[in-house]
Every structure is written in C-alpha cells, then in structure tokens.
C-alpha cells in the first residue's frame, strides 16, 4: 500500500488501538546479585570490579558494592570521583562505621583482617545496601569463617593468576565447592588500560565484557 493509499484509508478506517506494553522494569527471572570472587592480585581486583559493574547493569541499579578482604587491616582512603548514588551509599555505610569509599559507580568496603569481624561487616554492608548487587572479593587464603557468607552468594568465581596451570585452577574450583556453591573460572590478564578502567569504577573493560557475562551465567571464561 502506498503512502497516499494509506492516508486515504486513514479517513475511513480507525487506527488500531495501541496495545498496552507490559512492564518489564522487574521480571520474575531470577538474577545474579551476589557474587564471590576468589583470587589475589590485580587480576582478581579487575575481575571483581567488572563483575560488580555488570551485575549492577543487569539489576538496573545505579551503583554496586564490592567488599574486599585481604587479610590485612584496611587503610583509610578518600573517596574518588563518584556518581551521587555511590556517594550516598558510601555515606550510609560510613555512618555505620564501615570503611567504605565511593569511586565511579562502585562502593568499596575494605573489610577488617579478623575473619569474624569481616563476616559481620559483609552482613551489615549487604543488608544496608538494599537492592544493590554485592561482590565479595576474598584476596587471600580463605578463612573458614567466611564460608557461610560465601555459601549464601549466587555465584563463586575463581580468578587464577595469569598463566596459572590448569591443575591449580581445578584445585581452586574443587576447594570453592566446599562452601556449597558451584564455582566457575574467570581467566583475566588485565592490561594497563583494563586496570585503569577498573580503578575508575565506571566502565567494564571491553575485553572483559564477554567473559564476565559468561561467568555470571555459570560458565567458565
């Protein structure tokens, strides 16, 4: 039908009523909103940042929370430049006495060295963060006290050091399974650009987008 015919038909035929579009802001599809990352070094830090940002995008939240346990006492650090939502969440967590700071779309909470204290801090931060996705980075020998909280997460991701042998990966995955959650492997060799993007806390490094999507879906990458 030509445009002229369409216009002519429009004089005689009422246009069909526009169907009401279903609301898709929240679906009943289960989402991955809590992820544990096991690994040390910059590879694990970059992976945790990328996972947190991806989970936030999928959950349609304005920021994400990353709780970091290194086995060392946290050092005081100032906020970086951050979005208002991240700053607000960091402020709420600081008011509870947690070592939180905002950077980009992320709020990082540095956990106390003592594992029981760290566990309490994770529980408090998670409960106070509302619907914001939570990523727990365990960057050190995993203490048994953290197993309970890791078992309550949706996914566990093992980040081996770049170039690690397959046997080490397998050992890490088997060990992670002790907490009762399936673990997947995310192999990351972060470039200086990826590290810089991770520090900014705003953008997922392009090279990591595919691998992170795969591990959030429960597949190795």
């Amino acid at each position, binding site marked *: 039908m030509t445009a002229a015919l369409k216009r002519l038909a429009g004089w005689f035929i009422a246009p069909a009523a526009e169907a*009401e579009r279903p609301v898709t802001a929240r679906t009943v599809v289960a989402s991955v909103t809590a992820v544990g990352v096991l690994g040390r070094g910059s590879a694990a830090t970059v992976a945790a940042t990328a996972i947190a940002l991806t989970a936030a995008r999928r959950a349609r939240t304005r920021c994400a929370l990353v709780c970091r346990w290194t086995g060392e006492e946290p050092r005081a650090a100032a906020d970086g430049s951050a979005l208002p939502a991240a700053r607000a969440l960091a402020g709420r967590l600081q008011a*509870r006495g947690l070592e939180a700071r905002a950077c980009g779309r992320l709020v990082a909470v540095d956990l106390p060295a003592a594992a029981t204290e760290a566990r*309490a801090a994770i*529980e408090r931060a998670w409960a106070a963060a509302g619907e914001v996705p939570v990523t727990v980075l365990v960057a050190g020998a995993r203490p048994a006290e953290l197993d309970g909280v890791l078992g309550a997460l949706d996914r566990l991701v093992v980040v081996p050091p770049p170039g690690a042998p397959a046997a080490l990966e397998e050992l890490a995955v088997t060990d992670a399974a002790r907490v009762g959650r399936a673990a997947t492997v995310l192999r990351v060799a972060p470039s200086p650009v990826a590290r810089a993007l991770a520090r900014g806390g705003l953008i997922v490094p392009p090279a990591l987008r595919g691998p992170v999507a795969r591990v959030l879906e429960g597949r190795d990458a």
Partner: protein
Amino acid sequence: MRERLRDESGQALVAVLIVLGVVLLLAGGLGAIARALSIQGEHARAADLAALAGARAMLEAQPRLFEPAVIDGRLNPRHLGKDEYLEIGKRAAEETARRNGAQDVLVSFPDSDELAPRRIVVTVRDAIKVGDKRVPGKAEAEAEVVVVTAPSVGASLAGEYRGPLVERQGELMRPDVALAFDRMAAAAAKDGVHLLIESAYRSDAEQAVLFARRPDPKWVAPPGKSLHRLGTELDLKPPSAWPWLRRNAQRFGFVQRYSWEPWHWGYVRSPGSRSVGFGAPDGKRAVPSFVPDWLAPILRRASQRWGVSAALLAAQLYQESTFNPFAKSEAGAMGIAQFMPETARAYGLRNPYDVEQAVMAQAHYMRDLLGQFGSVPLALAAYNAGPGNVRRYGGIPPFPETQSYVASILALLGGAGHPVLGAGLEVRLVR
C-alpha cells in the same frame, strides 16, 4: 652573664614542660574521644547485628503465624500467636546484642499492629566511658523484612508440589500449567512452530538420583534447588521455537526463568505449590485451610474461570477484608475484595457487596494485572496502589501500606503451604 643564661634556660624548661603537659593532656583527651568513638562503633555494630538477627528470626517464624491454630480438633504446635512471634524476634535480637558485648538493649516493633509485623528496632543504650566519666550512649538500628521482586538465583525455593499432575507429551505437570501449555502450543502451531516438551515435573527424589549421577551443582541442581519440583516448569525444544517463545510466551503466563537457559520456561500466573481449582468439587482441597467453607466453592469457580490461583485470591481477600463481605474502608473501598467504585465499574461489578460477583471481578482484575506485570508481587502492588504507581516506580511503590500489603500476602501464602515463586522475602537494614 652565666647566671642570666641559667635563668633563661630555666624559664625555657618551664615553658617546655608546660607545652609538654598540654600536649599530653590533649593526646589523652583525643585518645579518650577515639576510645569513645570506637566503643560507639562497637555499639552500632551490636545494634546492626542484633536487628538483623531479630528480623531473620521473624522472617523464619512468619509462616507459622498463618498456620491453623487447630487441626482436626487438636492444637497445632506449629501455630504462633502474634505475641509469641514477636517474642521470637526479640529473643534473637537480645541474644545477638549480648554476644556482641551490649548489655542494655531495648527491642521494639514499630508495626506491631500489623497482621504480620516485619520491622524491628534495636537500641543499645550502654553508657560510654570517656576518661573517668560515663556518658549515656545510644546506637540504634532498624531492620525489616522486605519483598524482593527479582529474587537472586541463590534464594531458597518453595516446597515440592504434591497436588494432582497431568501428562502432556509423556511429561507430568500441574493441571493448570498443562491447560496454559495447550493454549500456547495451539497458538504456536498456528504460526508454524511446534513445541516439544523435553522435561517438566521432577520430584526431589528424582532430582536426587540425577544429582547422584553427576554431583556437580554447575550441571545438575542439588535436590531441593530445582524449580522443576514445583510442577510449573517446562524445558521446551526445538531451539528454533525459542524466538517464538520469547515473543509470545508471556501472553500465556510463561516466562523465561534464566537468561542463560533459553529452553527453561516457568508458569507464573498461578503461584502456589498446589494446583488451583482442580481439587474436590467442594473447592476445599484447592484453597488454604484458613478459608471459610462458604467461600471455598466461590474461589474455586473464580480460579477456574480466570486461571488465577485460589490460594492467592484467598490470601488477598483475607488481607483486604478478613473475608467480611460488608467491609468498607475510609477511602471508599467496598466489599470482600475492597473494590474502589471506578475499578468496580471498569470490571462490570454492579454490587461490590455481592461475594460471588466481587470474587469473580477480583480474579478477572488479578488475571489482567498478572498478565501485565508478569509477577505476583507487582500484580498485588498494582491491586493495592494502582497499576500507574507500579509503572511509575518500576517496582513495588515505596508506600508503607503497599509494601506491608504485599509482604503480608506472600507470608500468608507461604504459611499456608503456597509459597510464591518469583518473589522473595529478605532482611534489610533500613536505619
């Protein structure tokens, strides 16, 4: 000259001593303030953890509030009165606060007038020692049970389905799911797409066998963790049908459960662990035990007519009017289903005080809302606050009444053995 020097050095020494004294005093004062802040931080931590523990205990105990007090003429030991329920929350909070070093603890429940209170406030009032003095301290935390409309994949799931099952293509499923599948398969066939069922209902026992064969949670869900135990889930093939399903399945009440499983479709229009409207003709078996006998057949008919769970309709009526056909709210809502005049008109409800008419209109309205929002909590929120508000907020509106309405109905359904999939109750720190 020497004397003068000695005198001056003597004066300097006094000055140095005074400065040192002031510095020491200041350091002592700062140390005391730092200690006080640290103690205040510990109190805040104790209050947070206690509020969380109390709210978690309430979340766990909440379904027992809605269990029948008497079963077959005998007292039901699982049933909890509201006072006992609040006591459970209070005890858990107090014990946790003490374990974390707090002694003077006050626990209160701001919404204790509600059907199922879900908020708890813990105040730690231990004094803080600053130097030799004790100053009154106060750390307060509030936790509440909230509805989560997109539960995490790690959330605990509803119980195994134990009602009647029917067969389609050699696979078992709930009867209402089968009817919905029939309609969907017919529509797909008209478009030249033939839906095949790969897998449907799997009991916990069957899942245990599968898991034993391959005990890796990455590939096989452990028993008790698979949605297939609910009788609402279908694994559909061939892959060429998946695009059609993505475009059309929601019209028939099916949603894709996980973005990474294009074959896995779950029926969400009729939540509950029992098939609705397919029990005995009296309707009693299809509805929870808290429903009065006179209402059960009406619910059964409405449920079958509009394909909405009788348990959901019943829980809603209980929350709306406690089954009082003549209820009238201050806002002007009328009858057992508490229809506002304009909504009643839109659904052709002439007499909102007529139970049969009102329940039919309620089921019709809920069918529409479930179709529109694809989620039980959102449909409930829309029934209470209006669909416009749910759209505006992109979720359950942050109105205390609506939040409480949705949480109470979900808890009521859970307590009656009809937990809602696609909705979860979680504990959050709100203050």
